[in-house]
């Protein structure tokens, strides 16, 4: 099984390396950024059991900070992205500190409300340029040397960040810390009674998830050269929930798959206007009613069940 896994990841990486010669690099970059965003979100809902309905605040705010840093301060791309990520971590620390005081449904409402506050701050703050957003953000040159102007070069830069983020999430989930998070998801009261400082674990998970969502947003603003109010609005928070739900909550790769599907859908259906909203809403409803495992979750469920089945046969 272990060998299967590493073989699978190797093949996936090869496919991603070859992708910009087959597909459209800008679309691929967008998909990678949203995949990162959804995987970061999944760290919270899938592995800690906390539904944040405000993740756009990290994604969007980091996009603004990164865009501002690259365009106005003239920072190199890696430093601009770092600035965005750190700002998201800061917001995560403050909002998480407030939000972990409530559980379940209230947690979702609190995060949604706090994100709306960040949204209104972005509407009014001068550096976001309100309705226009920050436009034509320069990609700059990596470490001041390698120009990222070319879409394919930029793609590999984004891919490197995405692989790094994914490896980090994989590491977190499979660490002892990740085990504690899962125990909180399964039974918070028991985790507490075993002596774990549950609230502190939740807060760390929230900050990590927020920072990684910020990394995704910052990278996106450089890749597409744009940071707007759409990135920080509540619809974006809903979108990332949908991506994760569709791909499979609590699976490692599911959110990335879900993100790719949704980004592709938005790309192809862009002309349909508000039909996209209706289709996304309908996808939500269908997923919740009959497809709660998501694409990857369903796949895992079927393959492992078949394995068990054949094992019981051979036994």
């Amino acid at each position, binding site marked *: 099984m272990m060998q299967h896994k590493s073989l699978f990841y190797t093949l996936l990486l090869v496919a991603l390396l070859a992708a910009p010669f087959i597909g459209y690099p800008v679309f691929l970059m967008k998909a990678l950024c949203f995949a990162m965003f959804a995987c970061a979100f999944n760290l919270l809902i899938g592995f800690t059991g906390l539904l944040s309905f405000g993740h756009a605040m990290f994604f969007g705010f980091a996009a603004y900070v990164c865009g501002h840093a690259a365009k106005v301060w003239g920072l190199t791309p890696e430093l601009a992205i770092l600035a965005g990520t750190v700002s998201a971590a800061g917001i995560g620390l403050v909002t998480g500190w407030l939000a972990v005081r409530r559980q379940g449904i209230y947690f979702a*409402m609190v995060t949604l*409300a*706090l994100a709306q506050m960040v949204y*209104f701050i972005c509407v*009014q703050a001068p550096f976001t340029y309100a309705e226009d957003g920050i436009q034509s953000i320069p990609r700059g040159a990596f470490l001041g040397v390698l120009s990222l102007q070319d879409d394919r070069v930029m793609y590999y830069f984004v891919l490197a960040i995405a692989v790094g983020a994914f490896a980090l999430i994989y590491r977190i989930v499979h660490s002892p810390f990740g085990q504690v998070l899962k125990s909180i998801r399964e039974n918070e009261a028991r985790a507490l009674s075993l002596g774990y400082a549950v609230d502190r674990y939740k807060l760390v998970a929230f900050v990590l998830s927020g920072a990684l969502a910020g990394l995704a947003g910052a990278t996106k603003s450089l890749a597409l050269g744009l940071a707007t109010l759409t990135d920080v609005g509540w619809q974006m928070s809903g979108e990332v929930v949908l991506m994760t739900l569709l791909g499979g909550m609590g699976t490692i790769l599911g959110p990335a798959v879900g993100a790719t599907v949704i980004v592709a859908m938005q790309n192809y259906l862009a002309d349909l206007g508000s039909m996209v909203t*209706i289709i996304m*809403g309908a996808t939500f409803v269908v997923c919740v*009613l009959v497809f*709660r495992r998501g694409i990857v979750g369903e796949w895992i469920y079927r393959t492992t069940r078949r394995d068990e089945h054949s094992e019981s046969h051979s036994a």
Partner: protein
Amino acid sequence: MTDFFGVPIQALLGQLMLGLVNGSFYAILSLGLAVIFGMLNIVNFAHGALYMVGAFFAWMLLNYAGIGYWASLVIAPLGVALIGVLIEKTMLQWLRQLDHLYGLLLTFGLALIMEGIFREFYGSSGNPYELPAVFKGVFDLGFMMLPKYRIWVIVMSIVVCFATWYLIEKTRLGAYLRAGTENPQLVQAFGINVPLMITLTYAFGVGLAGLAGVMAAPIYQVSPLMGSNIIIVVFAVVVIGGMGSILGSIVTGLALGLIEGLTKVYFAEASTTVVFVIMAIVLLLRPAGLFGREK
């Protein structure tokens, strides 16, 4: 002219009045959310969308069928309640055994669908709803002008809220409802049709949202986006007040509307965020909410 901390008293009273009107809508909407949450244990994300649908029903009745405000006040909420019955019977009832978060996600999807449909047909801009003739004009109190319709909204919403409170806290039906919230199995064993009660509760809760929508139609532009704009603030109101108490949500809703109005006068930039700031403070001092109890 008299000033109050550097603001003409008329402007101040005018804004407070407007705040109270907003607060009336917060109160009715958060009341509906609380009623639904009590019985079904879900947070109805579609509440804002159904409020919008209520406003649109009133607008459509007037513009397509020539049916006026008074009849709309009854027909539109009933229409919305019917949608509620449909939602509960076909979807929500299958989620009863699952984590409460799924109810939130499902209703979020429904909100997107409803908003998308109305945007598809009516665009994002607002449609004005003409005020009934009775409500045109103002009462001149000498020191300030009171637009008649705003008075009506405030009085009406207070009546609706207290009627709901009375229904739930003081009548036999309300007693069944409260008992059903505490222990549905036992109530079912006493021969009361709990699933029916749940459906009716949901229909009643969203019917309230529809009613708020009709009342809002002449004040705000009837637009597909009006629901999502208000629902997030209402969520903050609910977090501040706690969903445990009916009276709590009424008081919190009205109070926050007033505070918002005051902020608009003295510190306009913060008027969109003040409710969220208050929510943060309440979370720090009383995490369960002002009227809530830890569950």
